[in-house]
């Protein structure tokens, strides 16, 4: 009986060395805990790479398949808004990276400022996306019952198609522009959904950062969120040329 008593208490107070409250007991050190979280976040991001990778592959195959339709349909995208959104998203990645630096160097107000800027730039991105989407809705370029082939059967009636010098497509090929817009809405829509989730988490983080949660040495949450946000940026870095740029001259 005395033995079991010793086992229950044995060592727990002796081994209980000093460590920060955020170090979980199953980790050897703060460093190991941080490395593990970093590794796990990357595993999650790899599942995201596979998810978006499937969409990119579908886009490449259909583009080869229905090439004239994809060229004509991509002329409907506004290169100015696309470029503006790319700049906005790269800026938001920069403010996020600066936020991680502020957390690491324990600058509380700097971190709050960076997170607020990232939050606002994320909203600007979605605002520009809304302008682009509403243009598609007005022109009936959203796949479905109300889809209109007019811009592709009669390009002279459409300012964007006329400016690109599009020739009228035969009816069966013109119908394939709907495949382009399906992929456009799925890819940019899934990207925008990731942005919305990121912005929601940013809103939560701003309050936590304000309370000083990330500037006391434990920066894993900010760093892992930064990885997520930069990942969403990378998806756009590939969406932008594939959807907007590569068919300008064909």
């Amino acid at each position, binding site marked *: 009986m005395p033995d079991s008593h010793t086992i229950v208490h044995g060592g727990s107070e002796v081994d209980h060395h000093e460590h920060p409250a955020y170090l979980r007991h199953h980790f050897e*050190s703060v460093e190991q805990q941080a490395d593990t979280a*970093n*590794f796990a976040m990357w595993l999650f991001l790899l599942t995201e790479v596979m998810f978006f990778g499937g969409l990119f592959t579908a886009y490449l195959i259909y583009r080869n398949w229905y090439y004239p339709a994809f060229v004509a349909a991509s002329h409907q995208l506004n290169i100015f808004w696309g470029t503006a959104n*790319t700049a906005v998203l790269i800026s938001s990645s920069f403010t996020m990276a600066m936020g991680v630096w502020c957390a690491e160097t324990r600058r509380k107000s700097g971190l709050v400022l960076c997170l607020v800027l990232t939050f606002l730039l994320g909203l600007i991105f979605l605002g520009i996306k809304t302008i682009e989407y509403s243009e598609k809705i007005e022109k009936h370029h959203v796949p479905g019952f109300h889809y209109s082939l007019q811009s592709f059967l009669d390009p002279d009636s459409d300012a964007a198609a006329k400016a690109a010098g599009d020739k009228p497509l035969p009816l069966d090929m013109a119908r394939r522009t709907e495949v382009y817009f399906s992929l456009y809405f799925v890819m940019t829509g899934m990207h925008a959904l990731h942005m919305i989730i990121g912005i929601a988490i940013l809103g939560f983080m701003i309050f936590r950062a304000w309370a000083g949660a990330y500037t006391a040495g434990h920066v894993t949450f900010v760093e892992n969120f930064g990885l997520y946000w*930069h990942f969403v940026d990378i998806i756009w870095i590939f969406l932008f040329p594939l959807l907007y740029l590569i068919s300008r001259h064909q």
Partner: protein
Amino acid sequence: MSEQAKHGEHQHHITPPVVYVVIFLTLLAFTALTVGASFIEMGVWNPVIAIAIGCVKATLVVLFFMGVKYSTKLTKLTVGAGIFTFLTLISMTLADYISRAWGQW
């Protein structure tokens, strides 16, 4: 134990802001470059150049903004394995489609 002690000594790397500023400006420059390149008629090279610039930008983001350059070997291996798997899957899929008779199915 000595290995754990060594591991514990490995300090958390903090990327200085100047690196982020340089990468940010480089990314903006590459964005301008890729938009500019899309206005030049290069035939089959337009998509090639656009995707190549995209790959350069993504690499900069992964290495510096995401800090993989300064991360553990485990993370580097994970990222490398992920990219390798993705490229394997996409090239095998595309090889399958390219080697079929177009429009025959």
